[in-house]
């Protein structure tokens, strides 16, 4: 099943299972069903609970806050992750603060989902991965959608909690089929699933037993899929063996499965599509370097897109964005 359809089904399950769930966002109503068609069919089947709004990202986030404070479970869609900047005040100064600053008297369980990422040639303001600016906001969880995590299960786990969540969905994953672990395997690779206390999964994928892997790769979203393909190819063609760890919640991180892998491989590569500098990889590198001080075989390697605007020209975009080639290059660097 393709990821967009699976996400639509996850939202459908949420609407079915919990009367408090409300969807808000731009252009969600049928027949359009959302800019990426994820919500197609939902406004018809759940009238009044799936609402299209004017182009008001601040109000979308803010109304979601008020709904959540009143006991509802709003799931807001921000059409492009690039537009998260317009919700920044509502997310940081309101949604993420209410419960803590009111000393636990209320909860504000808003879920904001947004399609993000480049590779389609959509240009500087429709291609970014801005989640990096939300990492480390206290009391805000950031979750990344990946092909190896089942969306309905992830959404259910998020709805079972009362904390605010930013859910990042890379738009290039939408037309791809999910690759869920079946019988401990994804395609022919070994796939191990670790579930956090919150019910959020991390999947570890390797072609050969962990002891034979010489490095760990940490990635999420579309980059996780690129890394998976690259590692698969490098294993078969060149006997370069690495273990890919794909967390669903990317901030804060569940370190247990990551540590379990690095503890054996002693080498880590962190890949992200966001731009380089003060990024996801920076945080992971700092923590892993500290935790495994003296035991790593080489410094943690981070790979991210170049810190500049994302050009519309696909050729120019491919020069600064994390692409398959750059992922493979980064893997070779850590495998050397």
């Amino acid at each position: 099943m393709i990821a967009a359809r699976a996400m639509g089904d996850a939202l459908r399950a949420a609407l079915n299972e919990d009367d408090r769930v409300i969807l808000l966002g731009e252009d969600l109503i049928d027949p359009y069903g959302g800019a990426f068609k994820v919500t197609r069919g939902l406004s018809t089947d759940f009238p009044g609970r799936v609402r299209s709004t004017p182009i008001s990202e601040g109000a979308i986030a803010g109304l979601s806050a008020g709904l959540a404070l009143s006991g509802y479970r709003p799931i807001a869609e921000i059409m492009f992750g690039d537009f998260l900047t317009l919700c920044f005040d509502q997310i940081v100064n309101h949604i993420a603060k209410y419960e803590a600053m009111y000393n636990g008297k209320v909860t504000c369980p808003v879920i904001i989902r947004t399609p993000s990422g480049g590779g389609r040639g959509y240009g500087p303001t429709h291609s970014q991965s801005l989640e990096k600016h939300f990492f480390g906001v206290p009391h805000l969880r950031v979750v990344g959608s990946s092909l190896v995590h089942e969306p309905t299960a992830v959404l259910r786990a998020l709805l079972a909690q009362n904390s605010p969540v930013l859910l990042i969905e890379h738009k290039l994953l939408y037309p791809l089929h999910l690759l869920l672990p079946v019988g401990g395997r994804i395609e022919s690779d070994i796939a191990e699933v670790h579930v956090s206390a919150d019910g959020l999964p991390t999947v570890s994928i390797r072609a050969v037993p962990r002891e034979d892997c010489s490095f760990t790769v940490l990635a999420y979203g579309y980059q996780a899929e690129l890394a998976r393909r690259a590692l698969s190819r490098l294993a078969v063609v060149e006997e370069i063996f690495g273990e890919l760890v794909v967390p669903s919640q990317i901030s804060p991180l569940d370190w247990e499965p990551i540590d379990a892998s690095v503890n054996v491989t002693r080498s880590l590569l962190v890949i992200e599509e966001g731009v380089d500098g003060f990024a996801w990889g920076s945080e992971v590198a700092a923590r892993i370097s500290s935790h495994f001080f003296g035991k790593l075989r080489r410094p943690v390697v981070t790979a991210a897109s170049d810190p500049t605007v994302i050009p519309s020209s696909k050729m120019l975009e491919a020069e600064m964005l994390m692409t398959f080639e750059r992922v493979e290059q980064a893997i070779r660097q850590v495998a050397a």
Partner: protein
Amino acid sequence: MGVHTHVRELGQYVEADTTIAAAIVDRRDARLVGVPGEPQAERLYRRMRFIRRFEESLLELFERGLLNGTTHACIGQEANAIAIVEHLADDDHVFSNHRCHGHFLARTGDALGLMAEIMGKPEGVCGGIGGSQHLCAPGFMSNGVQGGIVPSAAGIALAKQLDASASLSVVFIGDGTLGEGATYETLNLASLWRLPLVVVLEDNGWAQSTPSSANLAGSMRDRFAAFGLPVFEIDSTDVEEIAAVAERALAQARTHDGPVAIVIHTYRLCHHSKNDDNRPADEVAARWELDPIEIHGRRLGVSARAAIDAEVESALQDVIDRALAL
């Protein structure tokens, strides 16, 4: 990234220790919030006097160095809070801004909780974490970012609509808030979706140090009217005049299929926060002539007024003593 022993995960924030809470009973003191059966005029006076004396005491405690941080007193605007809250039901919700003490005290009467909160004590309304601007109590919330509260209040209104409840979501803003885009996004959406939202604009003519003439183009009431909201406007510091308008406005809000705006032209007699008042002295002096406490207080008999003043004083002293002892 290190081990943060004092950071609590969401879900670990709990109300103050129940034993502490149990020790602080009777947060609502009739001497401050209204004695059952007393004449309406006295009730209104008493409730305004409560807010006035609370704010003055607060500023005095700051002067004496017993409080730290920042605060935004509402001296001169007490009538607005009382006039509106008098016409609210228990299941209505109030969202206020940085200058929220009057609204909070009018709504909850919890002087000790607020004092303790501003003192940063665990017995405070929000455990000392929220402080002066970030308060939460049944039917009441406040936050300190201009305009940011308006969408939250609209969301609460939407929840009431989905609940098919007849209650209202009231949000207090200032003239300065009209600079924030979030306000207009929300007016548009609230009107479009016919939300039971009441926007109360307290125009005190000044946004911190900037007069509204330097901040606002066009007309205040037209802004609301542009989005289709009925507007109830009054220029007064007389609590009875304001209450009359509030009564009409809120009655309409309950029957009207959509948001309503109440614009009260008023004046802040104290500093914006502390020691930051550079308004023309003669302007401020002239406005003291229109002190709402005086205007309404004159309606009471001299002895009745003196008696209420004494009760409020004594009740507040209790609160301050207990708060300082925590």
